[in-house]
């Protein structure tokens, strides 16, 4: 199949950037979306032009590196998958595709489709963990955890930190990301001692990083490749309010 690509090209953080049109010819429907870009890139290299820079690593939907808006939707048209899991058979011969980076103040563009997501790391550093040192942990079976609670925790823990939720949100809020981490631990007995403090610290850091507020658009849930539920946001909101009421530091 043959496609027309409109791709965001930006030389560096200070370059204003622009859309550039390329044609992608003889594309096999069995290719993955990133393999299609590889082919285009190799052709650019052969012509001595710089390839389109994009983040990727595992290419199987788990590392959270890949991050593109395809036709205005984070990770492309299908639900529950990442950009690297999109296959070209999803498109038709002759289609025109628009490929852009995540757009958010807190995720500045480094080059082309590559953005800086260090803000997510700093949110976790602010408190997105259980404070336990190596060594001296009690036996893994010492505290029974119901299967339901363990499963709920795992549902939230499935977040890959890709940032699609932010890219999808009209306010560029990171609430779904923060809520997923908070609720992974809120569902576990080990997570209780720091529960409210954790909620407060992460949310405060999120605000400091320049992410917007959540005004319940729920675009995040629709864009999330791991289908993390917005119910987690409700839980986080409750914990955050309680943290403020009880004045945890």
């Amino acid at each position, binding site marked *: 199949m043959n496609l027309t690509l409109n791709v965001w090209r930006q030389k560096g953080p200070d370059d204003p950037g622009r859309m550039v049109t390329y044609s992608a010819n003889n594309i*096999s429907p*069995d290719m993955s979306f990133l*393999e*299609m870009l*590889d082919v285009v890139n*190799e052709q*650019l*290299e*052969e012509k*001595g*032009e*710089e390839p389109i*820079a994009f*983040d990727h*690593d*595992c*290419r*199987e939907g*788990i*590392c*959270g*590196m890949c991050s593109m808006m395809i036709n205005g939707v984070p990770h492309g048209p299908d639900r529950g*998958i990442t950009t690297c*899991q999109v*296959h070209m058979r999803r498109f038709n011969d002759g289609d025109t595709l628009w490929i852009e980076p995540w757009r958010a103040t807190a995720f500045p563009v*480094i080059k082309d489709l*590559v953005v*800086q*997501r*260090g803000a*997510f*790391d700093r949110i*976790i*550093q602010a408190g*997105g*963990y*259980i*404070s*336990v040192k*190596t*060594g001296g*942990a*009690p036996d*893994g*079976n010492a505290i*029974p*955890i*119901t*299967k339901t609670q*363990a*499963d709920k*925790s*795992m549902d939230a*823990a*499935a977040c*890959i930190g890709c940032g699609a939720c932010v890219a999808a949100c009209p306010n560029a809020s990171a609430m779904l990301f923060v809520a997923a981490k908070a609720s992974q*631990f809120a569902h*576990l007995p*080990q*997570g209780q001692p720091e529960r409210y403090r954790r909620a407060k610290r992460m949310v405060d850091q999120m605000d400091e990083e320049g992410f917007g507020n959540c005004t319940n658009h729920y675009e995040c849930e629709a864009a999330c490749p791991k289908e993390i539920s917005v119910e987690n946001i409700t839980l986080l909101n409750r914990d955050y309010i309680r943290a403020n009421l009880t004045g945890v530091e």
Partner: protein
Amino acid sequence: MQLESNIPSGPLEDKWEKHRFDMKLVNPANKRKYTVIVVGSGLAGASASASLGELGYDVRCFCFQDSPRRAHSIAAQGGINATKNYPNDGDSVFRLFYDTIKGGDFRSREANVYRLSQVSANIIDQCVAQGVPFAREYGGHLANRSFGGAQVSRTFYARGQTGQQLLLGAYGALSRQIHAGKVKMYTRTEMLDLVLVDGHARGIVVRDLVTGKISSHAADAVVLATGGYCNVFYLSTNAMGCNVSAAFRAYKRGAGFANPCYVQIHPTCIPVSGGYQSKLTLMSESLRNDGRVWVPLKKGDTRRPSEIPESERDYYLERRYPAFGNLVPRDVASRNAKYVCDEGRGVGHEVNGERRAVYLDFRDAINRVGEKAIRDRYGNLFHMYQKITGDNPYQVPMRIYPAPHYTMGGLWVDYNLMSNVPGLHVIGEANFSDHGANRLGASALMQGLADGYFVLPYTIGNYFATKHKGKVTTDHPAFKEVEESVNGKLKKLMDIGGDRTVDSFHRALGQIMLDKCGVSRTAEGLKTALEEVAALREEFWENLKLPGGLSGMNVSLEKAGRVADFLEHAELMCHDALDRSESCGCHFREESQTEEGEAKRDDENFSFVSTWEYQGAGEEPVLHKEPLEFENVKLTTRSYK
């Protein structure tokens, strides 16, 4: 090169305990005066950085991804072993030790493996305390499954995302130390060389992948946790960025490289669909519990699988190995898939004039237990397969083919996980120590975390307290020298100005290695490979085409640096495979097989670790042998007939 394994004396069970007591400690108040560089933030690197930070060391951690949470460890699916014996099915420290030694085909060190088995239970406790949501039974206790042919259920898991959850646990611990100011994290930063001062590892030279800036970092010790080198084959199950560069540059600075030819090739991966293929996706081995592997009896039979009658199918694993059938170990399954495809009986897409895939058929299982039962067992995997290939495995057999998956070889380390270069420690997949010639399923995660949480944090202190010599800073001339050599090499790459892309070289290298240093090897093939790799390398340095420049982000330049190292490392792998004329574990030399075509070990002549010493560009490396002694297990020969 001096290879002193430093294995403590005394009975196997007491070695680690005794050693921990014998090692010198660093006074708590002094720990902050020691700087440790940890390269890598996968399970090994993140767990080590966090634990060293907690102890009070001043830690600098580096990774090339945009966040430490994205290391390749994130992709591990199946699970992690530990000797908890929760199911009461007879597991013990000795049993895991024995299984690992035997699984490694008697080519690993007893003492290291025993320690690994001893600390394995602590890992699970640690991870539970961190909030890793392991699978649970209804009673609230941890669930186990049996994995990779083990006779006991000792594998812990978190859905199909065990690596992700363990890594996020370690990343949480690391993040806590970053917040506490004990660890400084450098993301999108690639180590390009190691700096030695008076023979000790005292720092690294790195490139900032965003700005292109080269800089030096000095420390009191360097830890490499940089993962494995399967991407020498171009196509593998590893993430795209996995590379050998850090380990290989250390090798060129004098660290011994052990058993480079030991590579595990995983039998159940989604096959190549075209020349554009960029990576191979692993399908869980558990599929072989219900799927039957077959190819057509006739060569070049391109009929649809449903049109091939029972009498014209060859269920070759069941035919050759009636006792184990489709559940033969990974290497046996991989080798046999290659053979039937070599014979021209492969199926699926034709790529470069060949069909390289075999069927994994669920028809009989579906007839036996119903589609629902199969969906419950493998629903996710079937879904993933359908997404990638466009085929519905409930209706047409899956197509699978082996793919390079894990490298048992790595930098040589002693019992303290220190290489022969004092101060240079190596942990996780990057070292060679625990898996011998073949790794058991669910044991890599265990090893990475054992090294990082429970071994290195102790042993590194012993280095500081006994061998370490005074402070150095980046003002030392050694740093300037290495920076110059790094800059020179990058400039040389940029200046070649040829017309072949870096990916094209990488693909060509992968093809040579897969054909001649893959599942099955011969002296003749390896000799040819040595010539072909050398010729390709020569062309690389004359004809590489690189766009962009040295400053700013340049993805092609990053790849070129890694491929340049692969082109040298491939040669080392072939030397090693050629020298080891026995078959063992995953290393199958066609010259060394039994009458039934099974791998034939030669314990009399090859019971050693092959450690290679770099001799300079264009020179053949020198082999050093560390003899392996087995005092606690009896060497046996596997049989799956």
